[in-house]
C-alpha cells in the first residue's frame, strides 16, 4: 500500500519537474506606447495567478509592472521598443522592463524620488533601476527590475 502511494505521489513528480525547469521565462516586446499597457497588465496578472501567488501579491505585482512600464513609456520616443522579461521561479517573479535608448541622441533618465517610484517600492519586494543610458553604443538602455517574492502562502 505504502509503496504504491509513494509512487503515485504527485509531489515527487513535481520536484523532479522543478529541478529540470527551475525557471520559466517569457519576453514580450512591444512598441513603447500606452496602447500595450493593458496587454502587459493582463499577462502579468495571468503569470502571477498561475504561479499561485496570493491575490494581494498578484495585484501588487500587476500595479508595479504597470507603473514601471508607464514610467518608461513616458520617456520613450516614437519608434522605441519596450521589452518586458518575466522570470518565474518557485520563490519569486522577476520582471525587467527595458527601454533601449542607444539609437537616441538625447538620452532620457528616470528619477527615483517620485511618487511613482514610491508606489513601486511599496508594491514590489525589490526595485532596481538599471541605468546604462549614458553608455556609448547601441546597448544603452533604461531598465526597471521588479522582484516579487512569494508570500507566506508557501510553494
Amino acid at each position, binding site marked *: 500500500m505504502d509503496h504504491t502511494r509513494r509512487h503515485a505521489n504527485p509531489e515527487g513528480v513535481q520536484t523532479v519537474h522543478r529541478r529540470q525547469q527551475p525557471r520559466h521565462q517569457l519576453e514580450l516586446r512591444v512598441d513603447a506606447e*500606452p496602447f500595450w499597457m493593458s496587454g502587459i497588465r493582463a499577462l502579468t496578472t495571468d503569470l502571477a495567478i498561475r504561479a*499561485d501567488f496570493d*491575490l494581494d*501579491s498578484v495585484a501588487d505585482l500587476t*500595479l508595479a509592472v504597470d507603473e514601471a512600464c508607464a514610467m518608461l513609456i513616458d520617456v520613450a520616443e516614437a519608434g522605441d521598443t519596450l521589452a518586458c522579461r518575466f522570470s518565474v521561479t518557485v520563490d519569486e517573479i522577476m520582471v525587467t522592463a527595458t527601454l533601449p535608448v542607444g539609437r537616441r541622441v538625447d538620452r532620457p533618465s528616470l528619477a527615483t524620488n517620485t*511618487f511613482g517610484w514610491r508606489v513601486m517600492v511599496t508594491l514590489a519586494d525589490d526595485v532596481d533601476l538599471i541605468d546604462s543610458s549614458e553608455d556609448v553604443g547601441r546597448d544603452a538602455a533604461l531598465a526597471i527590475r521588479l522582484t516579487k517574492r512569494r508570500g507566506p502562502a508557501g510553494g
Partner: protein
Amino acid sequence: MAATGPIVVPEDDAACEELPQGQHGYERFAPLFIELAGCDADEPRWQHLRNLIVEAHLPIAHHIARRFVRRGEPLADLEQVATVGLINAVDRYEPDRGVDFLSFAVPTITGEVRRYFRDHGWAMRVPRRLKELHVALGGAVSELSQRLGRAPTARELAAHLDIPFEDVVEGLAASNAYRSRSLDSMMDDGTGSQQAAGVLGQLDAELEQTEHREALAPLLAELRERERAIIILRFFGNLTQTQIAERIGISQMHVSRLLSHTLGVLRAKLSAG
C-alpha cells in the same frame, strides 16, 4: 463611425466635465424648443422640429458616448444609447422651466449610458457560468482571507470551491476585467466613504511627513474620498489590499481595480504638472 479597437484615452472617465455654455451655439435652438412644446405630437411640424433638434444635438450625445469608450463597449453601441438618451431628453424637456436644454440633456444622456452599462454591460457579455463563478470567487476570497489572515492563492480557491484550477484562473481574469470594474464602480459608488473619512483623519499626519507632499497633496485632494483613502492606506499606511478591503467594506478585487484606476489618474496628472 469607424469601428473601435481598444482605445486608450488618458482621461479620467469619472470626471463628467461640463460643456462650456454659450460657446457651442446651441442657444439658438431655444426658440425651436418653445415651438416644439407648442405643437401636438401628431403634427408634421412636431416631427420635423424634433428631428431637427435631435440631429443638431447629436455631437453632444456622441461626445458623452466617447467618455465611456474606455470601459470596453463598442463606440457605435454607446453612441446609439446616448442618442436614445438625447431623444428622451428632447421629449421630456420643458422650456418654460427656465433651465437651458444642455443642463437638462447632459445628465439625462449620461444617465442613459450608465443605465446601459448597468443593465447590459456585464450582464449581456459575460456567460452565466462566469457570472456565477465571479460570485462564488468573491465569496471564497473573503471567506479564505478571513480564515488565513491574508489573500488566498488560486490553488487555495480551487481547493476551497472544489473546482479545477483553470476555472479559477479564468474566473479571476474575468473578474479583473474592466467590465466588472465599471459595474462595481457604478453599483456601489459611495459605499465605504464614511469609513474612508474616518481613516483619512488618522493618516493626514502621515502624509505630512512625505517628501511628495507638495506635488501630491493637491492631487489627492481632488480624488474622491474613497479613492484617496485607498491610496493613502496602501502607500502611506502600508496596508495590504485585503486589509484595506476589510477596512473600507468592499472586496479586495474592487480595491485592486480602484487602485489601478487611481494610480493611472495620478500618474497622468503628475506627469502633466
